[in-house]
């Protein structure tokens, strides 16, 4: 056997476990879900079929269609706010915090990951309530005459999400920042760039892979999350995952839940396609 053939065989052998894994845990379930999305409920029975009625309903029923927009609006808001907060935080940790304190600061940054998602959301519910810490402080300081409602609004959902995703983005941007050679900044400064120009024209573009990777992860995790909007949003508007859970838990409508899930996956795929050129995992 030639070396080339031997290498080819080795390559196939190395790739096969990953291919099998993808086939068993992604392709097959996805196919089953896609097939289910073409079925429909008749009374309380699931009837297998091949029509696009569920998809048509998603885009014509105002309550279902609004779920897509609510999800996109919340996810876009969370992603933008998280990036705006995380970049300066990561930059400060990478460039201003002394080396010996960095590990401690990063540890503090990832602390929110240590607690359960549900516990964290209920904690925010208590903090953001009308008798919670935030309102008590604002009213106590005289900044507000009386408490305003944050809990059970979209603002509460966004707050809960941002708290988590700022930390995720900080890590991806930080790991990108520390890989940058200080010579880039020095060269720019030698050529007369101010500190602000160095950040804006040199550092920021070089950290785009970290920003985009973190932003994409934020987008994917945020748009697929059920717990945070359910606990903090007060059911005053429904996101796609909440609509999916309604179909599963209340109606037993697996076909519609599958169709909504496929739409959710399509949105994530489009987001990936839009950001793929910047997603360079090896630089994060």
């Amino acid at each position, binding site marked *: 056997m030639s070396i080339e053939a031997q290498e080819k065989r080795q390559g196939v052998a190395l790739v096969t476990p990953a291919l099998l894994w993808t086939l068993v845990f992604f392709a097959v379930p996805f196919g089953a879900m896609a097939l289910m999305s073409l079925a429909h409920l008749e009374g309380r029975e699931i009837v297998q079929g091949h029509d696009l009625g569920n998809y048509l309903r998603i885009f014509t029923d*105002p*309550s279902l269609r*609004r779920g897509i927009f609510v999800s996109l609006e919340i996810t876009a808001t969370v992603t933008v706010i998280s990036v705006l907060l995380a970049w300066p935080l990561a930059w400060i940790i990478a460039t201003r915090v002394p080396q010996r304190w960095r590990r401690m600061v990063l540890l503090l940054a990832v602390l929110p990951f240590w607690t359960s998602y549900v516990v964290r959301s*209920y904690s925010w519910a208590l903090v953001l*309530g*009308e*008798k919670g810490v935030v309102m008590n402080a604002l009213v106590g300081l005289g900044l507000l005459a009386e408490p305003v409602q944050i809990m059970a609004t979209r603002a509460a959902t966004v707050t809960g999400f941002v708290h988590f995703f700022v930390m995720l983005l900080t890590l991806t941007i930080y790991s990108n920042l520390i890989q940058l050679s200080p010579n880039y900044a020095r060269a720019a400064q030698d050529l007369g760039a101010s500190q602000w120009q160095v950040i804006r024209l040199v550092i920021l573009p070089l950290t785009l892979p970290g920003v985009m990777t973190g932003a994409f992860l934020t987008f994917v995790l945020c748009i697929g999350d059920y717990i945070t909007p359910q606990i903090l949003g*007060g059911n005053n508007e429904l996101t796609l995952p909440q609509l999916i859970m309604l179909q599963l838990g*209340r109606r037993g409508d697996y076909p519609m839940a599958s169709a909504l899930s496929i739409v959710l996956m399509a949105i994530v795929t489009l987001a990936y396609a839009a950001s793929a050129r910047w997603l360079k995992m090896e630089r994060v």
Partner: protein
Amino acid sequence: MTFKHSCAIAALMAGLGPAAYAEDLNALIWCDHADPELLEPFETAHDVRVNVKEYEGTAAGLTLLEQSRPGDWDVMVIDAVDVGRAVERGFLAPLPEGTAPTADYFPEVLLEDHVTINGTTYAAVEKFGYNTVAYNKSAVDPADMTSLAALWSGKYDGRIAIYDYYLPVLGLVGLNAGVDTTDLDAAALETLRDPLMQLKAASKQVSDVVGSQTALATGEVDVLIGGGEWLTAVLNAENPDLDWTIPEEGGLLWAQSLAIVEGTEKPELAAEFIKYVTSPEGQARLATSSCYWGMPANKAAGDVLSDAQKDILRWDDQAEYLTRAQLYPVPDADTDAAMQDLWTDMLQN
């Protein structure tokens, strides 16, 4: 590490794990049946481990059964008014004679029309209560709560939470509009759209059991439509101001029942479990379950419950309450879908 050490550690680990039982009983339940205080005496007496899976809403329960193999489940908790639905689809087995003697039951909750189909009894009612109005009496005028109309009056705007379950709340909205739960069909449903949307506009949130309890307990809201003793009783020790009432328009009576799942390989053990849960001791434990409280269907549980527990359950008021409460709506598939569409519209707008 030596083999001896490994064996010692394995033995220690085994000792620390859950107790070993001779067999298992698989139960599809509501959260009140997950309380170890309820299950432990049965497990010990029969040397059996009760494996529980919680579900919410009959549709979800029936879907779970549909996707299971015969023998996967032995018993299930189900809304008494939905027993017929489950029987129609062949999910429930007849109860053996004498499984749950009803001589000591509150007669109003026997619900024979619902649990006995064509002369065969398929389920035993085990617990009941009311979906009505729960409130914080230190923040709300209790006199206002004697009428559902107070929730649409504007006085409590922004201080109301809606319990996130469409059947009882649509039933209550119907009662306020003069529609009995038995008349709640697709046509009547359309007349409830506006009052439901007005109620949503006046409310701060729509929440599940835990969310509703948290909102009432923290003062986030002062009134919960759809609430009742099942929600406030567990909070009574912490906050005695949390109260409930049945307004003059009436309230919704919920009644849960326990049934043997068709295809079980342990019908005798399943029947024993139902016998235990409907016995005075089981009934008292179920009534005061850590997840939610509710009235035991078997009056004999009164001999086991303490006076304080009976006070919280309003034991002495049941005769009057039962005359004013109506059963949950029992929609056919199309009406049920229309109800859920209306509920989704309310949540989303």
